[in-house]
């Protein structure tokens, strides 16, 4: 259970920084920094640079994604921005535009 949930219908304009998990179902504009896993659920809108641990993206992200662990773009995800992570998966049906950096 993630300790921070940005529910559907919530809009945060600014910076969100957390030491633990984040689930985003609503809207974030600004920055999103997490130390643990980040989940961008379907219907969520993130217009922000995202830094965190393992990431699962099923919503819409406009911004750069940087993960210390892995990034999974799931079907229905729409990502515009650069993705930097050790492991990256892009599922069939995910929309993506940007650079991929896998620390090779």
């Amino acid at each position, binding site marked *: 259970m*993630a*300790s*921070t*949930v*940005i*529910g*559907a*219908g*919530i*809009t*945060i*304009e*600014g*910076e*969100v*920084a*957390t*030491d*633990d*998990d*984040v689930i985003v*179902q*609503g809207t974030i504009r*600004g920055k999103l920094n997490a*130390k643990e896993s980040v989940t961008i659920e379907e219907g969520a809108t993130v217009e922000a640079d995202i830094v965190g641990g393992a990431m699962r993206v099923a919503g819409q992200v406009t911004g750069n994604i940087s993960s210390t662990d892995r990034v999974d773009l799931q079907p229905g995800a729409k990502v515009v921005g650069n993705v930097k992570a050790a492991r990256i998966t892009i599922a069939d049906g995910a929309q993506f535009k940007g650079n991929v950096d896998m620390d090779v």
Partner: protein
Amino acid sequence: MASVTVIGRGAHVTGRVTGAVDLEIHGRVDGEVTIDGELTVEAEGLVAANLSARRLVVRGAVKGDLSAVDAVVLENGARVVGDVRAPRIAIERGALVRGYVQTGSASAASAQRSEAREAAPRAKPQAAAARPAAPAARATPKTQTQARPAPVAARAPAPAPASRTAPVAHNSVLAGGAPTKSATLGAGSAPPRGGPPAPVVPVLKKGSKGALKKKAG
């Protein structure tokens, strides 16, 4: 879970938070929070922001103005520095508040309304204070007038008050003081309790006289 938003213990949000669902704050929020729903600042929450919600419950620390469409509830452990405005405000035992607190219709948008409200509550408490005072004033004379005739019959046979006051008289007699003075003193101390002095004095006099005669004889 779906409709509830939680800003977790380790989270720090800087900026504006808006929305139409319930929000729980366990972490830190700096900026502004406007929610059309229930906003709860939990015990470990630390908020430096103006909070606006339909219903606002605070158990943690808030520095900023609070306003609610429905109600503001400051529960035990709440520490609030800022103004509080809502139709209904509850400040429970253990909550700390420093700021201007005002109940009344919400949507404290226009300054004119707020000025009118500032003037209105001042008049209302006076009227409210006057209303209870008047019935009390009416009631007390009635009870006094009703009580006066009754005690003459009721208190004279009643042994309890006489026996309580009697030892005082005895002591004063033993000490060598004037018994009549002690009786009048006892009568003087009695009226503030019950009100009517007239029936009390004869009862004491009777007892004290009897005691005097016995002692003298």
